[in-house]
């Protein structure tokens, strides 16, 4: 039995019942390795990886308690946030969310958000700035944009296009 999971670009996740034990989720990576998680009824999470030469056989199983599972989720978290945001974007019609990188030579680099007047000019809001893996949610107009930042913006698709141009070339 196969369910379409809530991922978008990544491989399809397969869900399989393990009667008397729990549920198994797995998918095959681009490098042809099967990887998955077993949710056992006792609450344990087992992460397993299969070798490319025999995707039927488990090569390594890692038993994770709840805390360890959360640690792993945190470590892998970035992409999940992106996937969830993508999902949101698909669900709300007319609303677009995008990640706009600030290149070294971009107009917006070393300007404050207030300087750009993005909201006035395009209706687009900067909801977060990402810098070196740290997120600055809801930055003030006085927030200084640096080269290498990524700006998370929300608005209409056309507004975001204009905003992207402003950020790049003013």
């Amino acid at each position, binding site marked *: 039995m196969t369910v379409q999971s809530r991922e978008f670009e990544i491989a399809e996740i397969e869900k399989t019942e*393990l*009667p*008397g*034990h729990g549920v*198994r989720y797995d998918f095959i990576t681009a490098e042809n390795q099967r990887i998955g998680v077993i949710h056992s009824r006792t609450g344990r999470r087992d992460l397993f990886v299969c070798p490319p030469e025999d995707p*039927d056989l488990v090569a390594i*199983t890692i038993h994770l308690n709840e805390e360890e599972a959360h640690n792993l989720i945190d470590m892998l978290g970035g992409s999940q946030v992106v996937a969830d945001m993508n999902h949101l974007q698909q669900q709300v019609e007319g609303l677009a969310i995008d990640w706009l990188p600030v290149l070294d030579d971009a107009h917006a680099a070393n300007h404050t958000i207030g300087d750009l007047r993005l909201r006035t000019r395009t209706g687009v809001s900067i909801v977060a700035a990402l810098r070196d893996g740290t997120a600055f949610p809801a930055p003030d107009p006085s927030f200084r944009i640096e080269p290498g930042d990524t700006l998370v913006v929300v608005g209409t698709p056309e507004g975001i296009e204009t905003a992207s141009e402003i950020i790049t070339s003013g």
Partner: protein
Amino acid sequence: MGDPGLLFLELGGVIVLLAVVARLAVRFSLSPIPLYLIAGLTLGEGGIVELVTSEGFVEIGAGLGVILLLLMMGLEYTASELVQSLKTTASSGIVDFVINYTPGFVAGLILGLGVIPSLFLGGVTYISSSGVAAKLLSDLEWMGNRETPMVLSLLVFEDLAMAVVLPILGGIALGGALSGILVSVPLALVVVALILLAAHRHGERLSELAFSSSDEVNLLTVLGITLVVSGLTERLHVSAAVGAFLVGISLSGQAAHRARELLTPLRDLFAGVFFVFFGLQTDPGELPGVALPVLALAVVTGFTKLFLASWAGKRQGLSARGSRRAGALLLARGEFSIVMAGLGIAAGAPPELAAVAAGYVLIMATAGPIAARLVKG
């Protein structure tokens, strides 16, 4: 109670023997069942030491062991898992039954055990040991393997089949004549159907009522209900084992979860006593006489399980290697084969049935784990 001192000495001796034997099994990653059986064979009639005072207690303990084994089996599965397994594995489940039940039945007829004991021997060779399979899955870390869901579904199907076969066998054993069979078999099936229907309709409410935040209350409630239902079904000639299985299926959610944890130690104790008791009932002197037929039966039913795995595996698109691993997991026969034979003996089968079943399980419960490790390479 004649002499409490002697009683405790004997019981303590039996349990210490179980402990030593279980430790050996853990050390060599083997199933403890064949070792428990050997422990039972060395005691009792015709063995090295004879138990006198505690035999009555051991007999009751063995009965509790069967009930707990079946209760735990029922608790393992939720009703939805059973339905799902029935749907997905019906055809391989039926093939499994046909090719693994028939050899035991035919062997029983050839050995001249009689028709009814042969029907029980069919059950002995049919049912794989879910205990051995579960232990191998966790020891070898095969739970994530692609063939594992197929193996588990087949085991569920076998357990369900047993819930149907046991009352039929009980009815036949009881009815004897055709007229008796015509009455007692349908009666047994109606009782089973009624309990299943009640479980389906009211299982959740029953589970909520049974659950308590106190472990003590949980343990006593579940054990009490199980014994009462088992007693009732036994009186209706359906077999106490089936009653216990049906209680296990009826309980779900938190009540089932806690009951599983609380009852596991009890099950381990009394199932151990049951295997020893079965060994006690078996006359070791009978074993050499049946050795060759048992060996032949083991070889034939070993191949039929491997064939089943490769046939079912191919239909599910498994690799040949995956199917071989599935076959090795299904190969072992253990606790439920002994339960089958034990019920046959209780229904009046000749002592040869005990000897054949004991010898057969000794081979199969040892061969399964060895085969699995060989396949792993």
